[in-house]
């Protein structure tokens, strides 16, 4: 392999690609060539670096300098100054909010400093489309160890001893799942990777598949050896084209190099993988529904037990684990159960990836040790709430999760604590909300999602989610009754108790946690006909503040419904009977002269 003195690691995760990182890569290559540095400097496309808020991103190694928010025009300067003259370019570096001095090195940036990478260890470091780079960073070493030195039982014991629990949401101990399946005598057995990531705002699985597809493959082959499977499926939703492409490339490379197929690594073990593309239904993420989809059936869950470990794909014993779980497995085999168990809490070991989104300064993908507090994630890594707003809640665990308020910020993030608080680990979506978020509106959003995604098999889920949605929708429109809250709670609990799969069993969570922590907001909507956050359109009205209005007519031009009256330099007036409450006038006003009024009750007619 050629010795380059510098490597330019260009983030090519989906987030950065959509901001134009491939164009940056092209420009870098062109500029490096123009400066005659092509034999000294290597340009590499890597998987998601994690700091999506700041894309496109380039990391210069070995200097460790982190460049962000790059534009094609910045490239000549970067190459000339940094690579030719050795002067890192300050103006392209990251400047923390409320500070003036840039932080040149990636390892010193708060966002990266507190993370511990296991499943994402190769993110932003290797080219995911080159198997030799994966091998260079100890790739397939765990597989070699598992196939040549370990018995299936030893592999299962190691995974069990590590305390690894399923990263897809439910947190079932991985070692125990494998042991159940290994016990089954019937063959063939199957291995499935669940990459059907459907939570709004979540992109953990996508990033792992894009950044390090070989880690997932290696984990699956190790799992196959442990349970005695000969065939596996990687289930990826078809909305993830880049992930599919990289996994396809990785599977082809693994086959070519004898890491999949017959006689793997000359040990006689045979196993092969196939990609199955999902059509994007949320319920397909449920393991029995996903298995049905792999078989070519409609993605609907079925009753458990029997669990897939006993009766899975085509009725055969099947182990199904999430992307992140599979990517963690090789690390445990390579470095040992004790190393992994040394991180985290009593019952939740290792690390967890979270997609940090919403009203947060540093949107991105983070991997943190279990047991870290929500505060450390939101403020330490995430940089807090932007625009000087106040933190209101963090929604954890996707539509099945719950909203936790500011007083829960010191809660340690582990499976048990989150469940006790009414939320759940889920697959790792974390949506931060500020004081301009209406919690009833949030509950309505998730309920709408769930009633849409409910497969309809269980009456409790099909009708329950729909009725809950209708009630909450009425509340946001000022049509709520006092008795609605008790009815909502009852419906949520019934849906939970009477539904068969995880979707229905957790569908009440958005309602139950918002009621538990933000009951006063529901009451304000119902009793006072008031939306404290100023979000619910029926409960607010836009008015012009006469003392601030300059009569510039900006709002009048912006109004899509022609309901603003007023001549130039005169105070304008909004016709409430025609106003559709789109807020365009408020956005257009440069003098803060338009306000949404919500303090007094608004008569609903």
């Amino acid at each position, binding site marked *: *392999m*050629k*010795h*380059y*003195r*510098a*490597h330019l*690691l260009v983030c090519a995760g989906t987030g950065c690609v959509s901001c134009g990182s491939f164009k940056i890569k092209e420009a870098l290559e062109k500029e490096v060539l123009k400066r005659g540095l092509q*034999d*000294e400097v290597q340009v590499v496309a890597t998987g998601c670096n994690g700091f999506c808020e700041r894309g496109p991103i380039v990391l210069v*190694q*070995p*200097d*460790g300098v982190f460049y962000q928010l790059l534009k094609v025009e910045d490239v000549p300067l970067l190459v000339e100054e940094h*690579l*030719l*003259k*050795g*002067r890192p370019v300050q103006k392209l570096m990251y400047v923390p909010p409320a500070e003036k001095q840039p932080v040149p090195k990636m390892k010193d940036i708060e966002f990266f400093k507190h993370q511990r990478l296991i499943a994402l260890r190769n993110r932003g*470091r*290797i080219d995911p489309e080159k*198997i*030799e*780079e994966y*091998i*260079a*960073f*100890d790739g*397939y*070493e765990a597989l*070699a160890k598992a*196939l*040549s030195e370990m018995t299936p039982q030893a592999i299962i014991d190691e995974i069990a001893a590590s305390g690894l629990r399923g990263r897809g949401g439910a947190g079932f101990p991985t070692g125990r799942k494998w042991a159940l399946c290994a016990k089954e005598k019937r063959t063939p057995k199957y291995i499935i990777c669940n990459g059907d990531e459907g939570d709004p705002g979540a992109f953990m699985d996508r990033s792992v598949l894009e950044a390090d597809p070989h880690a997932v493959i290696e984990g699956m082959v190790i799992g196959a050896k442990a349970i005695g499977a000969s065939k596996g499926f990687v289930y990826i939703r078809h909305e993830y084209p880049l992930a599919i492409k990289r996994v396809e490339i990785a599977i082809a490379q693994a086959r*070519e*190099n*004898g*890491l999949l197929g017959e*006689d793997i*690594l*000359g*040990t006689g073990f045979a196993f092969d993988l196939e990609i199955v593309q999902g059509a994007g239904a949320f319920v397909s993420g449920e393991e029995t529904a996903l298995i049905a989809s792999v078989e070519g059936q409609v993605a609907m869950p079925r009753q458990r037990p029997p669990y897939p470990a006993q009766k899975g794909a085509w009725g055969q014993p099947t182990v199904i684990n999430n992307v992140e779980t599979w990517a963690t497995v090789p690390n445990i085999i390579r470095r040992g159960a004790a190393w992994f168990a040394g991180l985290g809490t009593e019952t939740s070991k290792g690390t967890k990836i979270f997609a940090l989104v919403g009203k947060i300064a540093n949107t991105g993908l983070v991997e943190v040790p279990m047991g870290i507090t929500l505060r450390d994630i939101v403020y330490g890594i995430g940089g807090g709430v932007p625009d000087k707003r106040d933190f209101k809640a963090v929604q954890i665990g996707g539509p099945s999760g719950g909203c936790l308020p500011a007083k829960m910020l010191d809660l340690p993030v582990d499976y048990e604590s989150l469940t006790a608080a009414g939320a759940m680990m889920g697959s790792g979506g974390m949506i931060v909300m500020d004081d301009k978020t209406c919690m009833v509106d949030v509950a309505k959003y998730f309920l709408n999602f769930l009633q849409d995604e409910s497969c309809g098999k269980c009456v409790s889920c099909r009708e329950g989610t729909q009725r809950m949605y209708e009630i909450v929708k009425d509340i946001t429109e000022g049509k709520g009754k006092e008795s609605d809250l008790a009815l909502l709670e009852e419906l949520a609990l019934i849906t939970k108790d009477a539904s068969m799969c995880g979707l229905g069993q957790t569908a009440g969570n958005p309602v139950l946690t918002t009621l538990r922590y933000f009951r006063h907001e529901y009451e304000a909507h119902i009793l006072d006909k008031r939306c404290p956050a100023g979000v619910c359109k029926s409960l607010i009205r836009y008015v012009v503040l006469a003392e601030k209005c300059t009569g510039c007519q900006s709002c009048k031009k912006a109004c899509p419904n022609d309901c603003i009256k007023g001549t130039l330099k005169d105070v304008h007036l909004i016709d409430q009977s025609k106003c559709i409450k789109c807020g365009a006038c408020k956005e257009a006003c440069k003098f803060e002269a338009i306000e949404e009024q919500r303090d007094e009750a608004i008569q609903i007619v």
Partner: protein
Amino acid sequence: MAGTKKLTIQDLAKIREKTKSLMTIRESEGRARVTVHMGTCGIAAGARDIMDILLREIGTANVQDIIVTTSGCAGLCNAEPMMTVELKGHPPVKYGYLTPAKMQKIFVQHILGGQMVVDLVLGVGSETMY
């Protein structure tokens, strides 16, 4: 590289050995870090050739854990081309008035061998940062 040949366990180790430099640089951890000063003065005095020779020597010696980087003018333009050699756990050593021959000597004796080439050294340590 790996090619289309089926890998064995021994092959994996071989690939890892061959690609070690990749890890050294991407992890930014090596036994030595060599900085060639490439300000305008350095480039004018021939720092480019020094860099080429350094990279060639590293290639020939087939060592994997030496990090080469560039930096701007070190302030002593008169002594260009210059470079700084930092071995793990030792203070930085600055060399000046470099020529290809001197560069080769420093590479073998200091960077690989760990012994300073005393008669070529400009100074040991670095300025105090304020």
